[in-house]
């Protein structure tokens, strides 16, 4: 046992889990505190009167009763964003380049996974599957999605980015935007030719839609159930596993050391005998694998996918990466969690706090505004050292 433990760097396995716990609890607590303080203030104003008329509760009670569910929802989406954000941050760390096409790689992963499950369903396998087999099929879908996305990421790098290495700043960025657009329509074309449908729907099987109920909370005349669906648990667990795995790869293996070396100083790394091209391809591969898995998880949680699902989650995940400090993996984790919580808090409470003047339609603007504020006052993000941008 001890010999086995010597081969594995246990510290690197445990550290990210610890970080995740601290981040989740910390940011949830911070945001809850802000929201509760706001509620206390608003209780004395017109907002409190308005809410009393409608629901017969104070703003404070309303806020507190909804809080646990909002936190759970926020963390779930936060982990999805963190998983996608890692893809962005890895590539940026190594190449100082935003891979715009990552959002479409995420979408491709989702499509491949869902198509596999739809195929299995039409083969009749899913309907009668036992619980164990259901999870096995889901795992298969995730793996397939990961492989497809990873492969695509490597191909994109070879075709569209490698010829442009060394050109000025804007050139690969514009090429990346082009790839993103191209892939969106290619997905649409392929889907149209094979299935003729725009939307693809994740088949229902297994116990994924069930909820685990923790209890009921009373709010005025109604009762709120506090619970978490199995889907969300799966999403969180798989995301955590991926994050831990990635962290281990980068911080505790030789390959990881090579990646970190290339990220730190590419010419010197190549002088040290590291095959830079291979490492860059590997970085894209890993980013793609993560994005693909995130795609299948997204499809699991939100059921319906179409060729354009990549755009907004990709944009928000990039916002999360920048928020946390781009180039920094811990930063991506933190940024994702904070963004997920922020978005969910804003969407849930803004309507009530503003008496309907600004509702959840503004939650995306909220995220962008936070991004702009962070970039003005702390451009290296919450966790970053000033990695510096390529001039």
């Amino acid at each position, binding site marked *: 046992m001890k010999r086995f433990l010597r081969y594995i760097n246990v510290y690197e396995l445990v550290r990210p889990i610890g970080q995740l716990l601290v981040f989740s609890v910390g940011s949830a607590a911070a945001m809850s505190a802000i929201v509760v303080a706001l509620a206390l203030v608003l209780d004395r104003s017109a907002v409190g009167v308005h809410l009393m008329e409608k629901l017969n509760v104070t703003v404070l009670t309303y806020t507190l009763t909804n809080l646990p569910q909002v936190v759970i929802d926020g963390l779930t989406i936060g982990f999805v964003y963190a998983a996608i954000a890692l893809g962005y941050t890895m590539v940026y760390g190594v190449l100082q380049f935003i891979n715009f096409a990552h959002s479409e790689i995420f979408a491709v992963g989702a499509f491949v996974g869902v198509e596999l499950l739809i195929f299995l369903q039409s083969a009749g396998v899913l309907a009668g599957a036992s619980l164990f087999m259901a999870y096995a099929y889901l795992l298969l879908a995730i793996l397939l999605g990961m492989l497809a996305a990873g492969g695509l990421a490597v191909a994109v790098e070879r075709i569209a980015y490698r010829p442009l290495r060394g050109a000025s700043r804007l050139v690969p960025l514009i090429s990346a935007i082009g790839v993103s657009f191209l892939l969106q329509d290619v997905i649409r074309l392929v889907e149209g030719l094979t299935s*003729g449908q725009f939307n693809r729907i994740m088949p229902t099987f297994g116990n994924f839609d069930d*909820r685990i109920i923790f209890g009921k909370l009373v*709010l005025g005349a109604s009762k709120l159930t506090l619970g978490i669906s199995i889907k969300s648990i799966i999403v969180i667990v798989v995301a955590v596993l991926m994050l831990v795995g990635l962290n281990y790869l980068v911080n505790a293996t030789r390959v990881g050391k090579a990646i970190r070396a290339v990220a730190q100083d590419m010419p010197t790394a190549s002088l040290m005998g590291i095959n830079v091209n291979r490492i860059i391809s590997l970085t894209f591969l890993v980013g793609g694998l993560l994005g693909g898995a995130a795609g299948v998880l997204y499809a699991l949680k939100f*059921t319906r996918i179409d060729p354009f699902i990549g755009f907004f989650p990709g944009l928000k995940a990039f916002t999360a990466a920048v928020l946390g400090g781009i180039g920094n993996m811990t930063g991506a984790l933190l940024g994702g969690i904070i963004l997920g919580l922020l978005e969910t808090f804003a969407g*849930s409470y803004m309507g009530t706090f503003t008496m309907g003047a600004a*509702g959840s339609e503004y*939650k995306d603007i909220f995220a962008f505004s936070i991004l702009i504020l962070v970039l003005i006052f702390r451009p290296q993000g919450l966790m970053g050292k000033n990695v510096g941008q390529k001039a």
Partner: protein
Amino acid sequence: MSKRRISVFSMMVAAGMTLALIGSAGAADKAIKVATQSPLSGDQSLTGVDIKRGAEMALEQLGGPLTALGFKVTLAPFDDQANPDNGVANAKQIVSDPAILGIVGHYNSGVQIPSSEVYHTSGLVNVSPANTNPKVTTRGYLEVNRIVGRDDVQGVVGADFAAAKGVKTAFVVHDKSAYGQGIAEFFKKRAEENKIKLLGFEGTEEKANFDALLSPVIAGNPDMVYFGGMAAQAALLFKQAREKGYEGTFMSDDGFDSADAAKIGGKTLLSGGGTFYSTVAGPASVYPGTAKFIEDFTAKYKAAPQPFAAQSFDCMAIVLKAIENAAVANKNEVPTREAVAKAVRALQGFKGITGTYTFNAIGDPEKSLYFIQQVKSADPAAWPTNPIVQTLEIAPPK
């Protein structure tokens, strides 16, 4: 592929496309075209493509009488990309082709309104399958007609049904599109008149993650949740609401009338207070033509029809009939656009698969039939058998 080969290939493609440009002028003697404009690309292409397909099928199935008179009728589909600039540019291209005698379109009122200015200037008749904004017809153009009910009626119908069902509190959500928000606004107005307390009125462009939006909904625990918008979003919202423990009634508009809703929502649409939706299209039980349409459509395009595909079928049928009437009146020669526009207005009681249509002076259908249907089965194939809970016959506002 080497750089040289890629550039040669792209040049060949460009040359090919240029050559193809030549081939859009020559028209045979008795050639007639009917155009369609709807979003064929972009995120609204789901419905836009089916609008084109519905018209295409109608042309195939109902073009017989015109071919018998000696005409060759073809379809000219255009993609407005849900963008008014493209819509207007395409409209100008459409009106400059003398063979086009009518147009079925659009899907977005925001594109239809400026484009129809162009149709009006050239006298080209436009029969719309999906534009519900009242402003489409309140301008009073001879050329502009629609067969769907207006927002200011459908929203009212929904609110009246809710009141009749004893709903005391409601939460309204819409998809921030002109269609969804239009209906939702009128639902809200009427609900307040019917003394239903509105616990919230929110729009969302979010297509997947409704967790944040649902917290205030669940907290208020309204008797009914009304969604103004399309089936995919609505069904997902309802499903997620059920999963969070909401037990009340769901209601939506005719954008919900698609088998996709059952596919996405599944059993959650049946539990609790049930799911209702208002439609203007007759369900298969009242109009057998609809059942045949769904069957043919699914066989030809390998997918169930989206909302408004059946309406598009009827619009094309109306245009074809009008052209036929005008041609016969013109001694079997190609009729003028004005004649066709007048012929559309002159149609009395046109029996389509979605209803019987007579147009009033501004182009609205006189007395549309509105149906309130309930979702009774989680099987997408059984969608056309959803029972009618209430039927209303309402004339559009003057």
